């Protein structure tokens, strides 16, 4: 933990330095920037635009601006402009003298941010009031309040219809983001991330995807999404380009939206330092309910474990394998039982130390930052942590009055170690929650011989070094296996900003993003999930390179006082290469180390290269008429190596208009201080993945049994090649999304409130899907531009500022988003698979339904035309004929009289029957999502909170469905009780057995009420939740003691909580869950998933 202790020392050293920029001789202008109410404004810029000089205010609102003697003479007058976010800029003319000049500014509030420049992509900018599309901006204050290191997670609940799902509370676990619903079937699609003009990689790769067993991201450990390499303290602001019109300038890469990140930069003036240290404690608060009444066994008969005899020697061993089920007799009073639901959790800790320094002079500015982040997770054991060091150097230099050059380099080292998860015999919660109540999991090693013991295999000896333990002991999983990621990343770019002629501006950026990640997953001997319980080592090397070149020329013109505009033309080249090499070794020779050369059998290695190039030309024109009507039109022309050879290039047009109608209507007595109506239309694309059209044979492949066993295609020393199951695609084009967006932005009641409303409809056509083809044709799928998906929705945001006094301010923000996803066509197929758990909890995109719908087995219900076996072996019994019309309409549960049989026979009168056909159960998509944000400031104290609401959408609680079969779920305590199905399942029933009470016996639970019995429906639950996502109390301490004794400008204290409370009907561990991570599009599937954590955060900031 050295890194934690050293940072404060560096900080103290840095803060002890004299303010550097005073060295230069010149004329000094000082002053204070405050609001009209008198509140000092921190981080406001004060600039002399004509000289390219500027300074930034400190926390107390004071600034110092030094003008070099060579640039201005005493007696001359200069124009100073003070700007701050949320305030109207103010200009003042100052006559400079040899002595110090004071100029204070008192800025009027500008809650609508009118006049401020917004980055709109590829180097273009536009004033807020001229935007023809909705703006969603997240500034550094909101990011900091979120206390999240992963900037994707930090975006949760910040903008309507920007759905963020963090996969788990594991340190470094990925988060996925989806904007305005799913409009592609490529499950790993995430928006394009651009940092300071440079696209960056945000991929997520699970180590075990490459282990050859075919289970992929359902197993292994949670990997990070690569945006985690970005230090969130470096971020100044984030613009979320949601719609196609806004994203169109990125053409074929903007199909899922664009996240534009701008990092902080230096300003000329005294060098400022800031050191922030944050510590937090994280724990888990929600647990599944497990029974502690019945012990190990089946059929009510105890079977702890029976000794095994060595078949070869006929010696009796102490080793024994017991049942994994807890359907034994009631546990006698006095027998100790254990709390398996929460015993593997602990409180984890996070420390984060960040130092930034920035400053500059009239020609050169710089920003540097360094940060050390460490998190230990909420599972016991040493393999549950994430460390990230991140550094950034950003600077620019004005070479001549018309040319400025800049550079921006960031380096990060991100290292993590994870715990085996979810659908995995070594998964920590699988082993924990399935364990029988009477087994003490904590003794995961045999006290005598030190071998791995589990509840199904409690007495291991040397004879069982190579035997599976059924399910691994969770404490073994937490303490012994490793799964590490070691990623090093460099992102850098150089840029030039030239104004060769007054009306022409040229920007050029050339950048590179490189990351290399070495993965190691070592599973020890006896690990139950490995192909041989002899241990396994997976090594994987991933490298990701991206090169970007972008040139943009912008000409400004003014036709008359009533008509002006700009014309831009640009060219963009982007090349990405994703390389990986991985190998899996089975059978550890010695118990450690976890290295490939310490394994007996190494599977054929996996190596692959994927290279994608894209070249785009783009143009954009804006026209401002009568200072109230703002028009914009754009066109992008993209060529990409993954477009089919017949369609190498594609056009993406866009157009938008904004009309500030209050210029005509007036402000209606202050009721409507500002009103803008806007309309935007645009087209964007999603690039096809590479090589879908190439006709090749598969090398290094294998043939698998659905349960995991496989044979390599290479046998007897001969390399095997075979035809892949995906047929080569012909003539692929980019997926195309056409979106119309309408909306209005209103300033209400003298700007005490503002309201923004947006309606959109987007049609995505040519969506690439793996069209299922007849398996008898020799292939199973073919990629084609086949599907059509529609998303339509509304977005509301309302901000209210009831109190804006100098010492007391209160504001409230509400956002609300609705989105309706509709799959209109799948090229003839009724549904296509879209992730899910495989056999259970299958998610699909289905025509007439939505992307991600659940397809699963249900009970026999009325109204579905189900015919049952009438006992003669013939399907002659009509369910619907035995239900009323009303019941047929509502799909009421049908209960038989015992003479008819469904898919799984039946238990008799009054028991439900299983329906043999999979049906659409529902959608994980919420009906609406929203949040409420509030902040109250009294003098230096600010209290803020963010409540996140998700209404509707199903969650598959497969965990419960499995634990029922295992006999550990709390509900199985009802075993032996008599109840009607109506009361047990909580729904009305029809049919001759409707009112018959039945015994809830083991057979019922295991065969008619568990996920293992071809049944899913009862385990889909309402996933609505309300989360107190953030709450914080901050105090900014300024004053004489701080400035004169501590030599600081301010000290910030903050106490915060994250995810402190969750209100939900969901009975599982957390309704915000994603068992396969951001790598998969699967939503709403909970299968022994690692939970989210609650955090208590304390932070101290020293600023100078």
């Amino acid at each position, binding site marked *: 933990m050295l890194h934690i202790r050293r940072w404060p020392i560096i900080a103290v050293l840095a803060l002890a330095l004299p303010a550097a920029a005073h060295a230069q001789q010149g004329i000094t202008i000082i002053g204070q920037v405050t609001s009209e109410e008198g509140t000092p404004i921190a981080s406001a810029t004060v600039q002399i635009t004509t000289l390219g000089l500027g300074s930034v205010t400190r926390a107390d609102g004071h600034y110092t601006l030094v003008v070099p003697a060579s640039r201005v003479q005493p007696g001359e007058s200069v124009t100073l402009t003070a700007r701050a976010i949320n305030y109207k800029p103010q200009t003042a003319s100052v006559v400079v003298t040899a002595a110090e000049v004071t100029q204070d500014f008192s800025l009027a509030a500008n809650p609508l941010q009118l006049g401020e420049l917004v980055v709109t992509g590829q180097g273009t900018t536009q004033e807020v009031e001229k935007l023809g599309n909705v703006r969603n901006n997240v500034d550094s204050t909101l990011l900091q309040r979120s206390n999240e290191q992963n900037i994707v997670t930090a975006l949760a609940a910040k903008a309507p219809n920007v759905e963020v799902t963090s996969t788990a509370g594991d340190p470094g676990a990925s988060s996925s983001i989806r904007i305005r619903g799913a409009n592609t079937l490529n499950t790993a699609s995430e928006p394009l991330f651009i940092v300071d003009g440079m696209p960056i990689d945000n991929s997520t790769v699970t180590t075990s995807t490459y282990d050859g067993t075919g289970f992929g991201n359902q197993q292994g450990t949670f990997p990070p999404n690569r945006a985690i390499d970005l230090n969130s303290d470096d971020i100044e602001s984030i613009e979320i380009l949601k719609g196609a019109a806004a994203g169109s300038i990125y053409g074929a890469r903007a199909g899922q939206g664009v996240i534009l990140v701008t990092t902080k930069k230096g300003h000329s003036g005294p060098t400022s330092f800031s050191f922030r240290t944050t510590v937090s404690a994280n724990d888990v608060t929600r647990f599944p309910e497990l029974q502690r009444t019945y012990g190990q066994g089946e059929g009510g008969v105890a079977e702890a474990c029976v000794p095994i005899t060595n078949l070869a020697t006929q010696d009796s061993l102490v080793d024994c394998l017991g049942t994994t089920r807890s359907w034994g007799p009631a546990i006698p009073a006095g027998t100790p039982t254990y709390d398996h639901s929460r015993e593997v959790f602990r409180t984890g800790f996070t420390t984060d130390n960040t130092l930034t320094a920035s400053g500059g002079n009239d020609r050169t500015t710089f920003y540097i930052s360094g940060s050390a982040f460490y998190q230990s997770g909420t599972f016991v054991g040493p393999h549950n942590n994430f460390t990230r060091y991140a550094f950034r150097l950003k600077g620019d230099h004005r070479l001549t009055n018309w040319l400025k050059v800049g550079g921006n380099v960031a380096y990060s080292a991100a290292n993590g170690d994870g715990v085996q998860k979810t659908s995995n015999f070594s998964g920590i919660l699988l082993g924990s929650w399935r364990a029988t109540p009477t087994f003490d999991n904590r003794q995961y090693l045999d006290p005598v011989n030190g071998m791995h013991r589990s509840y199904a295999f409690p007495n291991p000896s040397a004879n069982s070094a190579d035997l*599976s333990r059924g399910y691994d002991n969770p404490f073994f999983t937490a303490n012994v296996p490793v799964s590490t990621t070691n990623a090093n990343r460099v992102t850098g770019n150089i840029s030039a900003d030239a104004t060769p002629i007054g009306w022409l501006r040229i920007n050029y950026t050339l950048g590179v993003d490189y990351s290399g990640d070495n993965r190691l997953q070592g599973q020890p001997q006896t690990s139950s999930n490995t192909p041989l319980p002899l241990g396994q080592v997976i090594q994987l090397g991933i490298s990701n390179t991206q090169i970007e070149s972008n040139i943009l020329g912008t000409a400004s013109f003014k036709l008359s006082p009533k008509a002006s505009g700009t014309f831009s033309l640009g060219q963009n*080249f982007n090349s990405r290469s994703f390389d990986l090499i991985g190998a899996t070794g089975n059978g550890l020779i010695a118990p450690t180390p976890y290295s490939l050369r310490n394994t007996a059998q190494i599977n054929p290695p996996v190596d692959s290269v994927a*290279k994608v190039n894209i070249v785009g030309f783009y143009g954009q024109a804006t026209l401002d008429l009568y200072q109230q009507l703002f028009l914009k039109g754009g066109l992008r022309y993209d060529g990409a190596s993954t477009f089919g050879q017949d369609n190498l290039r594609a056009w993406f047009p866009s157009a938008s208009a904004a009309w500030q109608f209050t210029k005509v209507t007036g402000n209606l007595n202050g009721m409507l201080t500002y009103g803008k109506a806007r309309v935007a239309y645009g087209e964007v694309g999603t690039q096809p993945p590479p090589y879908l059209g190439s006709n090749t044979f598969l090398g290094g492949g294998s043939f698998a049994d*659905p349960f995991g066993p496989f044979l390599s295609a290479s046998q007897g020393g001969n390399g*095997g090649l075979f035809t892949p199951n995906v047929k080569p695609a012909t003539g692929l084009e980019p997926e195309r999304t056409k979106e119309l967006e309408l909306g209005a932005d209103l300033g209400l009641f003298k700007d005490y409130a503002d309201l923004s409303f947006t309606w959109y409809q987007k049609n995505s056509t040519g969506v690439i899907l793996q069209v299922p083809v007849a398996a*008898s044709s020799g292939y199973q799928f073919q990629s084609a531009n086949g599907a059509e998906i529609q998303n339509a929705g509304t977005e509301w945001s309302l901000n209210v500022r009831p109190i804006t006094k100098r010492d007391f301010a209160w504001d409230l923000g509400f956002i609300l988003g609705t989105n309706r996803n509709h799959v209109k066509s799948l090229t003839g197929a009724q549904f296509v698979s879209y992730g899910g758990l495989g056999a259970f909890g299958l998610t699909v995109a289905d025509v007439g339904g939505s992307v991600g719908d659940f397809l699963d087995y249900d009970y026999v219900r009325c109204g579905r035309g189900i015919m049952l076996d009438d006992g003669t072996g013939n399907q002659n019994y009509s369910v619907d004929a035995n239900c009323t019309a009303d019941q047929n309409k509502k799909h009421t549960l049908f209960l038989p009289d015992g003479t008819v049989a469904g898919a799984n026979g039946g238990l008799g009168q009054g028991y439900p029957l299983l329906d043999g*056909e999979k049906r659409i159960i529902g959608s994980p998509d919420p009906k609406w999502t929203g949040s409420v944000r509030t902040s109250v400031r009294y003098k230096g104290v600010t209290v803020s909170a963010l409540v996140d609401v998700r209404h509707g959408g199903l969650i598959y609680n497969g965990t419960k469905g499995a634990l029922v079969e295992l006999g550990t779920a709390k509900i199985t305590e009802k075993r032996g009780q008599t109840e009607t199905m109506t009361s047990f399942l909580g729904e009305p029933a029809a049919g001759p057995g409707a009112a018959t009470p039945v015994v809830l016996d083991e057979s019922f639970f295991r065969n008619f009420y568990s996920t293992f019995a071809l049944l899913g429906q009862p385990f889909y639950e309402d996933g609505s939740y309300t989360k107190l996502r953030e709450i914080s109390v901050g105090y900014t301490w300024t004053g004489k003691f701080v400035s004169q004794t501590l030599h600081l400008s301010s000290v910030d204290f903050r106490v915060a909580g994250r995810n402190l409370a969750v209100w939900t009907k969901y009975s599982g561990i957390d309704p915000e869950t994603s068992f396969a991570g951001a790598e998969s599009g699967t939503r709403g599937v909970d299968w022994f998933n690692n939970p989210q954590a609650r955090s208590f955060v304390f932070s101290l900031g020293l600023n100078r």
Partner: protein
Amino acid sequence: MRNGVRFSLLALGLSIAVSGCDLTGPKLSDNPNDPSAASNVSLLSSAQANLWVQSEADLARTVCVWLQQCSGRQSQYLSVGNYSLGDGDFWFQNYAATYGGGGLIDLRRIQSSSLQAGDSTFAGIAAVMEVWLVGTAADIWGDVPYSQAATSVANPALDPQQQVYDHLQAKLDSAIAFLSDTGGRNVGPKGAELVYGGNDSLWIRMAETLKARYFMHVAERIPAAYDSALVHAQLGIRQGQDYNNYHTSVLTSSNIWFQFFTTAALNYVAAGQFLVDQLKNTSDPRLREYYSGTPVDTTVFAGGLPDGSDGLTAGTISSLSATREAPDFQQPLVTWAETQLIIAEANFSKAAPDEAAARAALNNVLATVPMPPVGGGVTGPALLNAIMTEKYIQLFQTIEVWSDYRRTCLPAFTAFPTGYTRLPRRLPYPLQERNANPSIPDPGPDPFTGGNWNDPNPCP
């Protein structure tokens, strides 16, 4: 001067930017990871592996449970034991593997390219493998795509089961002709074919046994097929020349039963009561050859019911023997014993029955076990029962026992679970195939009330 600097910088910027254009070209769209051509040897290597997986994986375990040689203990195999056929997509893997890479599409590639090269030995071996794969599919699903399958036809139509079997017989005839050709370019796969080392005469015998097998498959419909089966069985596999799947103790080449039992799904499947009791009752030495003693007491052998409703636990039920569960166990799939027992059944059932010949063939097999021979007093239905029971035991872990049962209803089983009067008679067409292929609009005949064409008479 200053303008010169400005415009040279501008030109530099543009040139860097525009140079990118050359990088979008057809070369970049070619997959750098995999080859675009495959040799016959590399395709055969895959085809063999595919065949072995298909003959040892899910379908084999399912038949093992249904035919009560195994019992389903947990999770999905409890459903199998309960005859939950669902949409049949549980077995989609087997269906797809019949036609896809390593299956029909690649076996046809081998045949056409080896015939072009004049290597009819190679073509003959691939043709026999094709028949085996498709014959298995036809037996399970009945009418299956064949003539249009793995061609350029997008939605291959179902060929009537009878026609498929006819084509397979013709295919075997031509395979035998190819294998009999002694032209100089008939190199064959040699050692790359890992069971018979590419030996053409062994492959001819294998082809003859398969001819006999597929005549038996249609004999319930076409009694004359017994005579044809007899003719070809007599030319079939000789003792010691069984087609046993090739496996080694290396994981990637190891027996799928081994992988399933030791690693993938512990305790999902265990020994079946019917076969264990049969072997116990007759003191058959194969009891120990096939099954292990129970973990609690290795001298006790116990099998479970298909649906696990027997009160046995992991400690008190037998599993596969160490021999059968070894990673390098060479799984017997097409054997001399099967050939002999076809001879026995065909002699018994043909239009002019020859019970003595039937008994002799049965006794040939019993002698190798060894089990006491069947005496002359065993005649009529008792003799057929003895033949079919022996075949049921001999063909342990293969799916042929299901076909034999549907034809002869022997050995006689009690169907499980309650509510079912008989064993499943076919698999429904998998949902994925029905979803994608309009030529297959429904799941096909009911698996319990309606059988395939070759199974006109349900067992009681």
